[in-house]
């Protein structure tokens, strides 16, 4: 499977970067072809400017503001997101990537009249979120895992009908130890090597 791994963390030597490497190593063991998109390394600008917002509802693939990202998204059969959970959600940079890159005519079509939007990412049949959280597991459930839901429910609605979902989190990062982190890295690699 062609898998686009979207990575978002400002610190190259962070634990999150190690999680990314474990994920990629697992996916490669399973024989997948990896395309890595590192948003901070690219200096991606997540702020949608006014003219883009004005064009948003009628956006055509030909006018896409990030043709390279659009092409890579279109080529993907699986998507794995690796990011730290900040304020229960996606880092602003990743949220802005969804807003600016997942446009109409690429990921969905808006019908002329009433009715739901039509998904166009039906070539994606694997969607994964691999993250780290400061909060404990129970409180993340109370708040409703907003970041996880944005991707695994919101964006999944634009993917294939039988799109498989994977979610993994290391909770309570501020209390983590070398052991809990090593266990998590091993679990990530193992789980993804079985996909």
């Amino acid at each position: 499977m062609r898998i686009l791994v979207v990575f978002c963390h400002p610190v190259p030597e962070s634990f999150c970067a190690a999680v990314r490497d474990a994920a990629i190593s697992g996916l490669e063991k399973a024989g997948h072809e990896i395309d890595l998109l590192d948003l901070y390394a690219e200096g991606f600008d997540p702020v949608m400017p006014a003219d883009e917002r004005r064009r948003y509802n009628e956006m055509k693939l030909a006018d896409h503001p990030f043709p390279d990202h659009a092409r890579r998204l279109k080529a993907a059969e699986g998507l794995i997101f690796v990011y730290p959970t900040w304020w229960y959600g996606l880092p602003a940079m990743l949220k802005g990537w969804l807003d600016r890159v997942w446009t109409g005519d690429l990921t969905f079509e808006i019908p002329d009249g009433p009715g739901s939007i039509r998904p166009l990412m039906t070539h994606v049949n694997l969607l994964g979120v691999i993250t780290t959280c400061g909060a404990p597991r129970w409180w993340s459930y109370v708040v409703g895992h907003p970041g996880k839901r944005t991707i695994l429910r919101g964006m999944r609605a634009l993917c294939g009908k039988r799109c498989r979902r994977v979610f993994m989190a290391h909770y309570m990062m501020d209390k983590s130890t070398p052991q809990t982190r090593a266990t998590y890295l091993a679990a990530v690699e193992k789980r993804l090597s079985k996909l």
Partner: protein
Amino acid sequence: MRILLVHAHPVASSFNASLFRMSLDRLTEAGHEVDVIDLYQDGFDPVMSEAERLTYHDTAINRQPVEDYVERLLAAQALVLVYPVWNYGYPAILKGWFDRVFLPGVSFGLVGGKVQPTLHNIEKILVVTSYGGSRFRSWLMGDPPRKIANRMLRATIKPGAPVTYLAHYAMNLSTPETRQAFMTRVERALDKI
């Protein structure tokens, strides 16, 4: 009341921006002291930098890059947020405002790895927002922005303080009547502050 009014929409002619301008006028007329943060107007950069991430937990210096916003947040008695929901979440510019400004030592403390909310100067929150999706579809998706407001923000401010969440869903199918009806709901909520 000292009210911090935060707005995040790039297009001045949008419905959302008109909600923002109406809120500002109405609150000012009611005699409140309104401090406006228009994130697009400010050209706010929502991206937390590597240096900021590395000093995130150092409460002596972590607020330096956003000190002005921190002071205004801590001086407020009420918070009014006017923004659109995009992809079941905040626009990046607003998400980044939370990421960069709601820091340890500002909105919460970390005691033994546990978060203790500290934004007790805020006695009231009003959220005014608009969704592309229907209420049902948003509910299916877990409505993350509603949960963030009603659970996370509620837990961060003064214990027991009210959080009001007003949303116009299905904007793509909205009519002048639905928008006017929503404006009226927002006006009433503003008058209650």
